[in-house]
């Protein structure tokens, strides 16, 4: 038997191989952070415990649409709508607000807590690129949460009719306002949530801050508007996340504010009617809030010591 020159039992080692393939730049870096962050929002690729809260709240946001579909499926008459598209957010504003409060702090707090940011910022990724990717990921998640149930309602309504195309012909004009108001809500609330959430790496504090923003601005604005007929207090509605989204949604559907009926307990609607501000002002307020929030996030990351 010929003796092998190779020493017996040697470890098979391929050795180091250099990488000669393409090196993509900033755009790819942003895309990588975006995709990973979007997955992370729903806890995908992470431990089961990270999935419970976001998935649970996503299901909660689906319930009004499911109830709606159940009612129209069970009812004989199909001439009424349980939820009309222009007041959809009345039903899901809290699940959506709790969702951003739950996921935004983890989205930006994790990298701060585990000191991973120096690894990101020593790669082809600028700090503003990182913010952009996180903002886009949160907005996408929220947009999906806002639009998927409404799409289900729209399709359900059409199926309930004898002629689905007929329903589509009558209601296709709602699609624009549904998408526009959903996009505004997503970007607006994401920006605010990131501005608050990026300030600390402790998520209970950050989540509490975001919930406090929605609750306090809502309650205070409502109290101020109803406390007096003074014109100045009307503008307090412009800082309230719930009021601004509601007003913007009504505006996109072209709804004019009529005097509320006596038994109408839609408090946001009543506040908006009482304040009687031009709808454009709410759109401007949303854009101004987004701009201020992004500046706050930018300053937070620029000043961060790495």
């Amino acid at each position, binding site marked *: 038997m010929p003796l092998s020159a190779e020493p017996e039992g040697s470890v098979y080692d391929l*050795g*180091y191989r*250099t*990488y000669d393939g393409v090196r993509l730049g900033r755009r790819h870096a942003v895309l990588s952070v975006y995709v*990973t962050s979007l997955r992370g929002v729903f806890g995908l690729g*992470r431990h089961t415990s990270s999935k419970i809260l976001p998935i649970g709240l996503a299901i909660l946001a689906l319930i009004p649409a499911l109830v709606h579909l159940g009612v129209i499926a069970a009812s004989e008459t199909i001439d009424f709508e349980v939820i009309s598209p222009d007041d959809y957010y009345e039903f899901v504003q809290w699940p959506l607000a709790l969702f951003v409060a739950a996921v935004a702090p983890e989205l930006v707090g994790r990298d701060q807590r585990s*000191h*991973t940011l120096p690894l990101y910022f020593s790669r*082809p990724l600028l700090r503003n690129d990182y913010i952009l990717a996180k903002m886009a990921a949160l907005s996408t998640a929220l947009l999906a949460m806002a639009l998927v149930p409404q799409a289900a309602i729209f399709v359900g309504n059409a199926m309930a009719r004898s002629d689905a195309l007929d329903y589509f012909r009558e209601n296709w004009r709602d699609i624009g306002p549904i998408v526009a108001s959903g996009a505004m809500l997503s970007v607006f609330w994401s920006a605010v949530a990131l501005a608050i959430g990026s300030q600390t790496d402790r998520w209970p504090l950050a989540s509490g801050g975001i919930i406090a923003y929605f609750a306090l601005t809502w309650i205070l604005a409502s109290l101020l508007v109803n406390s007096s007929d003074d014109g100045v207090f009307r503008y307090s509605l412009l800082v309230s996340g719930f009021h601004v989204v509601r007003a913007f949604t009504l505006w996109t559907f072209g709804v004019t504010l009529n005097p509320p009926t006596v038994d109408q307990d839609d408090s946001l609607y009543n506040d908006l009617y009482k304040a009687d501000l031009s709808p454009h002002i709410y759109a401007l307020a949303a854009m101004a809030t987004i701009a201020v929030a992004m500046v706050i996030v930018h300053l937070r990351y620029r000043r961060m010591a*790495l």
Partner: protein
Amino acid sequence: MAFLATHALTKRYSGVTALDSLDLELSPGIIGLVGANGAGKSTLIKVLLGLLKPTSGSAQLLDFDVTRHQVDLRRYVGYMPEHDCLPTDVSATEFVAHMAGVSGLPRSAARERTAETLRHVGLFEERYREMGGYSMGMKQRVKLAQALVHDPRVLLLDEPTNGLDPEARDDMLDLVRRIGREFGIAILMASHLLAEIERVCNYLVVIDAGRLVRSGPVASFTERTQVLVVEVEGDSSALAQRLREDGLRLRQEDGRILVGLEGERTYDLIRDAIADLGLALLCLEQGRQSLEDLFRTPKADADDASLG
């Protein structure tokens, strides 16, 4: 152009000058950056990465200006920070692949190189587990892997053996040396431990208070001195007495005799003296300057060098 060059590079924090008009010009190699804690090692690395903006002066790495061409430069740089930087709730595979993507590698290439790189740093089955349960040694390996995964041209390592036990420390130093010698990647490694630098690096930069103290090949720091160290079993005082009578300059220290070397004749005299006195020779070697000498005060150096 040089691989790494700085010109009057200065970085001031509020009141503290971390880098004080530092001038460097280095060729690629395994470069050790030595200095006490707070000497400015980490600051220099962070300025080179663009994590910190210099107060004044300029720096080039791989022919890129570090402030003007940050993004281009960072595609070819790997960075291993001093402190913990790993999320606890993802696996090493997932994390390193993500970091490869952020470095610009397409998805499939990122996956492939992640598997290879983790194998090179010695992480096997455990790479699919969440990193929260990793030992310090495993964490350091992942930190090195994420710096290496995109095949950088230069690695900036900040205290790579930080927090490791002696065995893990040896493994890490072997790994760094292998990356520098076999993988052909230039390395700038900061450490406050001279012994580590001596083992791994072939070039040395010593900084103190943000200023350059000395730089050169490691060998030039450890040149042989003109002193013979003699150690015997038995009465060393008698030997010292005899050698003095033979006309040699010497000094006794901790039972050892340090003899001034004056040509081949010195060896002969020591051999004869030991043979005549019937002593057992334990050690006879030419003394080396140690890197530690760099940090001794000049006064102490002068005392050490004087032979009675």
